[in-house]
């Protein structure tokens, strides 16, 4: 007993192990695949992922499926295979539509659409991604995506959306005490506010970012924050504060080994000095900036600085130096394509030429300036208008989408109510249908029962008729035998008392012949065709019979048209019945009618109905009510033939018309 339990336990363990083995396989695969991606072995990674796919599909693991599809999409994205990437992302969404994987896939798809420059699809997918994310639990990944999304929203002027995302991200990072991300978010909010034109708010957030960066001791970010703050202050015309911040920015930036922006900060500082009015300081600062920029090789910035330097020196009337600077600026300008700097350059040159009293050149340059300004202005205007238009359109689209969704909601509600009423109707109809079916079946059943009853009654009447016929024949035979044979018996007994034996014996012989004949007639009527049908065809038998009638009954029979051969094709039963009818008819005529002539016409018409008329010139029979056995026989046999019989009788004669459908009575086998 003990060993049995052990075996059972082992068995369970093995099953579990095997089962869990299968489950473990999947994570192992995924880990391997991840490593391959990190090693940039993309093809191998995809193969591993696809293996994992088949397992996930077999076991119908929705979540894993979505994850794997996303990962595959990601790999393709890295390979720049946009088609496959988007295909897989879409598969991920299909597999597990409300999961984080789906949200990521939506986001990645929006990035793809950014590449394809399809703004509407981009925004649509981005919205969907965010929508799913908002329902997900708060994770770093989620808010990381929020940050990226906000950048995209900023690009398309959807500032409010961007800010909403950033604010909710900030709340999360506050809870998590994630200072770095808080700083980054603050900065991003600052950027957004600035784009929205809210300078104060923007400055506030930049300052917040600065403080957080100070906590983190992030030199680069501190410098950037200072610079941003200083920029705003400068626009706000708070030059002193701006200068301070610029200086701070420079201080921190200098600590960082290589940074392109240092030169720019210097020139910012220089322009701040200039605006403040401290031209000397501005001059020296510009020169410093120039130095650094030359090291940085920032051409645009250099030309820009040269412009400003030239301007400065213009006031000092150091025209030679001014010319120098203008030319230097031009040199650097030729390598880049910046219209703003060029414009400034033209402006300065115009002023210069005016100063050295080269009025024509100055005028020329002024005109140049105007032109360029116009173009730039128009460009800027049209850009602005385009922006506004886009904003308006997107708002309009959103409204439309909103309206449509409401529409859809109301429509689906009507559909629901309609479905419900339809369901009710269906239910009602099906119940009705069953009732009707029930009634129908009931009536059918009744019909069947009625038909059966009718059949039974019919058979009963047939049986009764047969009994009557048999009875009558029995009576006939009895009459013939009893009356006639007794007579003959007596005649024979009387023979020895008589002389003329020969004569008497002839008489007796004659009488016996007669009796024989009558008996044969009776038996004939009992079984009309009997074995005769084996000897020859029905038509021959009928013709023979009619000849016999003519011979024995001495009634002239006029057969006006031959009996059709189709009668021979009828079934034996039908032939018997037909011949039986003829026997009865002729029996009637020969026994009762006292006719001298019988006319028979017969034919088959196009519809296959056989018609025979038997007309005699006898005395007719008075009332058909007095139906003899013969008439019953005739009627019954007609019924068996599916035929119709009409009897018209007067004192001038009788016509009997019989209609038989030949086809029904024909057997294919005969």
């Amino acid at each position, binding site marked *: 007993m003990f060993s049995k339990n052990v075996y059972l336990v082992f068995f369970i363990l093995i099953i579990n192990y095997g089962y869990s083995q299968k489950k473990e396989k999947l994570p192992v695969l995924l880990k391997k695949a991840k490593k391959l991606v990190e090693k940039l072995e993309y093809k191998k990674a995809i193969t591993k992922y696809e293996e994992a796919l088949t397992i996930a599909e077999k076991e119908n693991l929705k979540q894993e499926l979505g994850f794997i599809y996303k990962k595959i999409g990601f790999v393709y994205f890295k390979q720049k295979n946009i088609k496959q990437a988007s295909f897989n992302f879409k598969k991920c969404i299909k597999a597990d539509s409300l999961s984080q994987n789906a949200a990521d896939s939506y986001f990645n798809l929006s990035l793809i659409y950014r590449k394809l420059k399809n703004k509407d699809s981009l925004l649509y997918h981005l919205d969907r991604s965010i929508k799913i994310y908002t329902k997900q639990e708060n994770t770093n990944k989620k808010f990381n995506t929020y940050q990226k999304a906000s950048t995209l929203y900023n690009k398309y002027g959807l500032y409010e959306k961007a800010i909403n995302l950033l604010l909710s991200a900030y709340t999360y990072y506050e809870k998590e005490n994630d200072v770095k991300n808080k700083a980054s978010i603050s900065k991003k909010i600052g950027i957004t506010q600035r784009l929205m034109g809210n300078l104060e708010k923007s400055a506030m957030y930049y300052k917040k970012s600065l403080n957080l960066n100070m906590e983190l001791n992030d030199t680069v970010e501190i410098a950037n924050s200072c610079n941003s703050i200083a920029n705003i202050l400068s626009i706000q015309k708070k030059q002193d504060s701006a200068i301070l911040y610029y200086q701070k920015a420079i201080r921190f930036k200098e600590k960082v080994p290589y940074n392109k922006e240092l030169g720019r900060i210097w020139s910012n500082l220089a322009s701040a000095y200039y605006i403040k009015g401290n031209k000397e300081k501005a001059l020296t600062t510009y020169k410093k900036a120039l130095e650094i920029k030359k090291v940085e090789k920032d051409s645009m910035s250099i030309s820009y600085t040269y412009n400003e330097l030239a301007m400065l020196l213009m006031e000092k009337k150091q025209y030679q130096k001014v010319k120098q600077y203008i030319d230097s600026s031009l040199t650097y300008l030729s390598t880049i394509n910046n219209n703003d700097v060029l414009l400034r350059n033209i402006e300065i040159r115009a002023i210069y030429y005016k100063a050295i009293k080269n009025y024509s050149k100055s005028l020329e340059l002024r005109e140049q300036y105007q032109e360029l300004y116009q173009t730039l202005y128009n460009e800027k205007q049209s850009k602005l208008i385009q922006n506004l238009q886009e904003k308006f359109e997107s708002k309009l689209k959103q409204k439309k989408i909103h309206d449509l969704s409401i529409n859809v909601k109301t429509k689906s509600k009507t559909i629901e109510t309609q479905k419900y009423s339809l369901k009710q109707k269906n239910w009602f109809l099906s119940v009705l249908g069953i009732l009707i079916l029930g009634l129908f079946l009931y009536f059918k059943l009744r019909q069947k029962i009625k038909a059966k009853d009718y059949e039974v009654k019919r058979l009963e009447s047939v049986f009764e008729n047969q009994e009557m016929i048999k009875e009558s024949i029995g009576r006939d035979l009895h009459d013939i035998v009893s009356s006639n044979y007794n007579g003959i018996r007596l005649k024979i007994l009387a023979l020895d008392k008589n002389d003329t034996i020969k004569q008497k014996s002839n008489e007796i012989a004659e009488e016996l012949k007669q009796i024989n004949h009558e008996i044969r007639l009776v038996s004939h009527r009992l079984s009309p065709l009997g074995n005769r049908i084996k000897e020859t065809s029905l038509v021959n038998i009928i013709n023979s019979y009619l*000849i016999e009638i003519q011979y024995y009954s001495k*009634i002239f029979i006029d057969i006006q048209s031959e009996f059709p051969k189709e009668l021979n094709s009828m079934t034996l039963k039908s032939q018997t019945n037909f011949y039986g009818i003829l026997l009865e008819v002729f029996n009637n005529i020969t026994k009762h009618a006292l006719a001298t002539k019988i006319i028979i016409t017969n034919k088959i018409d196009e519809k296959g109905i056989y018609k025979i008329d038997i007309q005699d010139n006898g005395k007719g029979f008075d009332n058909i009510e007095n139906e003899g056995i013969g008439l019953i026989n005739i009627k019954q046999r007609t019924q068996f033939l599916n035929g119709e019989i009409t009897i018209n009788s007067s004192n001038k004669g009788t016509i009997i018309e019989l209609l038989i459908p030949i086809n029904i009575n024909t057997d294919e086998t005969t």
Partner: protein
Amino acid sequence: MKQHKQILIIEDSKSFAQGLELLLMQHKQVENVYQENDFDGIFNLLKEIKIDIIILDLNLGIKENDGIIISKKIKEQYPTIKIIVLTENVRVYLYDKLFNECGVDAYIDKQSDISQTYKAIETVIQNRKYVDDSISTMVEIGVWMRISTRETEILNLLKKGFLQKQIADKLFINPKTVESHIRNLSQRFLVKNTTELVAKYIKYKNANRENMDIIPPFKTG
């Protein structure tokens, strides 16, 4: 030719056969009368004794008309033996079968008078065929029933006393055609001349009633 004939009666009614034997023996040309009623008995006898005439009933035993089969067999094996069919089964349609198919020599109604049988014996000895009067009359009726419409027209006009030429005019046919029809009919009904033909025709139309005024039924039989 041997005067005294050996006769075999094939009949299943013993009493009838005995009665017939008695009557046959009264005939001067009959020497011996034998009786058999089954297949084997018949052919055994035939092997032993040289029979001249067989009087055959058609309805022997259970199987109807095995008489026909026996007659065929006998004619096969003993073609010289004359067969007289004596049967109740008097049908016009059997006439053709018996004479043409089976090759019998006589066909007599059992109901008829013995004189018919005597006549038959005498006729078949002379190698001629004999048919009962009733049968031959019936056969003739059959032939009358089958004459064509044209022939009927001609006969009706002849009956009324018209001459051949007048008939031709009335019917819009060639007098030669009329003549050929009349010749044809005369051959068929074995008459010597047109008068006899017409007489026969009238008789036929009156169903052989001798007295046209008498209305049947009289003694049918």
